[in-house]
């Protein structure tokens, strides 16, 4: 059985919600190691009265979902599955702040209601009047991958035609402040072209939403098949992940040289990038390498943006200049391997094949 990506939708720091070619980088210089989503006009997809009550993650998620459904030509999917590591941080912060400042008195429900992690998936179901299977994974750097795996397993059961799945995470002032205190972000100013070559620890914070409609039949706008997915939790060494990659390719009967483009989650953190250095050097020394986190920033579900980039590359047959990190654009691009890790603990491999 093949799984086709029938539609994609993405809201990110680039203008990815607009149709057309791969968007240019809007702000080449980061604002204090932080990348913010470039908000599209959400009125295209959401009633203006609802927009006012919605936090950004809900708007981003709904927009990405609607874009992907539109591209797939699907009105009501047979399942809605999301992944979000942090959930609705903004509403969580609002409710928490009021609860503390008002000593637990005179609180209102909206931000509490919208703080639950399944808010986006529930909201999409509500807007589509979709009674189908609905699930939300909240597992740090595997939130997106778990949602993907759930989708794959359900499609294999043969009863669902189209699954809407995706991942979303928002960055708030509080979350940026707090995560900064763990020294996760660059202290020095950095531009998007410099980031990936950085030799200092830390990266740039990001956020976004990317959704996909997956199905077992090739749709009118399908350009990629999702041919493989695996995860590795806390691999012991770079050698172990290299062995995992070889085993993963073997399961899918693919040789290393069959990979036309490797897309990595390189994020400019000198400590985390050694994983990618090792894999590029030892397994794919001759292949072109693309990167995406200088465009979306680092966040636990950023692999979803990476998969969106992979889909764009397969649909256009080109690697955008901003994406290409090493080597030359290959003549033909048929197979893309996406290797991402989050904080060195959550490693994932996604295999895409052009169709």
């Amino acid at each position, binding site marked *: 059985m093949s799984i086709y990506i029938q539609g994609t939708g993405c809201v990110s720091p680039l203008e990815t919600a607009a149709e057309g070619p791969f968007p240019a980088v809007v702000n080449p210089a980061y604002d204090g190691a932080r990348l913010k989503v470039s908000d599209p006009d959400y009125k295209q997809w959401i009633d203006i009265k609802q927009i006012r009550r919605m936090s950004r993650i809900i708007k981003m998620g709904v927009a990405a979902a609607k874009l992907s459904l539109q591209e797939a030509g699907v009105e009501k999917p047979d399942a809605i599955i999301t992944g979000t590591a942090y959930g609705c941080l903004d509403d969580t912060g609002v409710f928490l702040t009021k*609860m503390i400042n008002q000593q637990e008195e005179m609180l209102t429900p909206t931000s509490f209601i*919208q703080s639950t992690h*399944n808010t986006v998936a529930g909201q999409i179901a509500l807007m589509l009047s979709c*009674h189908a299977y609905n699930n939300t994974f909240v597992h740090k750097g595997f939130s997106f991958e778990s949602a993907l795996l759930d989708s794959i397993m359900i499609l294999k*059961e043969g009863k669902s035609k189209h699954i809407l799945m995706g991942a979303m995470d928002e960055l708030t002032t509080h979350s940026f402040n707090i995560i900064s205190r763990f020294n996760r972000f660059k202290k020095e100013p950095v531009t998007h072209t410099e980031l990936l070559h950085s030799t200092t620890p830390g990266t740039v914070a990001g956020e976004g939403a990317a959704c996909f409609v997956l199905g077992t039949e090739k749709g009118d706008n399908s350009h990629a098949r999702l041919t493989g997915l695996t995860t590795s939790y806390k691999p012991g060494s770079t050698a172990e992940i290299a062995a995992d990659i070889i085993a993963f390719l073997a399961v899918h009967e693919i040789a290393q040289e069959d990979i036309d483009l490797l897309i990595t989650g390189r994020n400019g953190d000198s400590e985390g990038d050694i994983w990618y250095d090792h894999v590029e050097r030892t397994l794919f020394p001759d292949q072109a390498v693309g990167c995406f986190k200088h465009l979306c920033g680092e966040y636990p579900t950023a692999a979803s943006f990476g998969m969106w980039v992979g889909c764009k590359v397969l649909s256009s047959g080109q690697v955008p200049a901003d994406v290409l990190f090493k080597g030359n654009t290959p003549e033909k691009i048929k197979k893309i391997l996406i290797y991402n890790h989050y904080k060195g603990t959550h490693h994932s491999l996604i295999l895409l094949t052009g169709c």
Partner: protein
Amino acid sequence: MAGEVWIGGGGVICGIGDNLSACIDAFRNMATGAATMEYLSSAHKGTYPVVEVRADNATLAVRAGMPAHISRTALLSKIAAREAWDSTGLGELRNYRVGFVSANTVGGMDKTEDFFADYLKDPQSGQLNQVVNHECGSITELVADSLGIRHHVTTISTACSSGANALMYGARLIRNNMVDVVIAGGTDALTRFTLNGFNTLMILDQESSRPFDDTRKGLNLGEGAGYVVLVKDELKELIRTPWCKLSGFANANDAYHQTASSPEGVGNYLAMKGALEMSGLKPEEIDYINLHGTGTQNNDSSEGLAIERLFAPHYPPVSSTKSFTGHTLGASGGIEAVFSALAVREGYLYPNANFGTRMKEIPFTPVTAFSEGNKVHHVMSNSFGFGGNCSSLIFSIG
């Protein structure tokens, strides 16, 4: 779907007992758990009873074999997951490909809310070790690491139905041969965040909750953790006493409102119907329904009407064990899965406490006394929640 999934064991910690047998004793003795808040610190202490696990974090930490400073959500999780595993007789975890699929809704919020009070005064203050495990997934990983589970670890959060969805995903992992066994269920600790959140929705009862009673006024929040161990068919012989099979499950969305249930319980109906279809059972073959039964006007009415639509005129015995445990949110699907699976093994019917008056809108009433040795071959466990998320599980005799 190919491949039976067995329930090889289970473990529970909640406000009516530190372990599963203590919980069963509480049902037997009609010892409900709602009481004045003792361990959670809140302005609402005198107003709303809660169902707390009767131990402070230091005591739980000793039992869990984990540091006392980490989130209570993780401590509860580890204790119940360990009990669940030990009950299977499968021996060393490392001999199997083990998955840990744990649900929760609050993550490390119990610590975050302490951190945040300091942080709001000064963004550079607040102890970072209180917020480092804020994420729901962190709780699962703390426990997975402590148990030595690496094959497949993930977290689900779909509000009050979270724990039930963990069993579904776990069963799929087994059927796809990704793992041999899965410890699946959920955990949640009481927090000021959730207590105040439910208070804004005006669905907390100031007395002990009365699920499926016409005079019900709301729910009592509880805390705890509950896990079953899902085991693939090929390993069945190694289980000490297989409890039952997970024969059916379904998840549907009510698509009506972000928090309220549709009056007629569309999502509830679809989840129960879907679970029956997967199990190949007819409604009249269900011997007991462990209700979602939170005790709010809206929830119980929707669930009751959905049951009527699907089961009339053959109503099986039903009860809400939340009348004992309180609503443990992300843990409830896991805790109630353990109770439901054990009911098949032991022929238990659990009582619904505090019941006095039949609900006007439905023709049936819940079971009010504990009994054992009943013919209980097929049990349905319902979990419905915010975001319209509705899930039903069916456990069947092997």
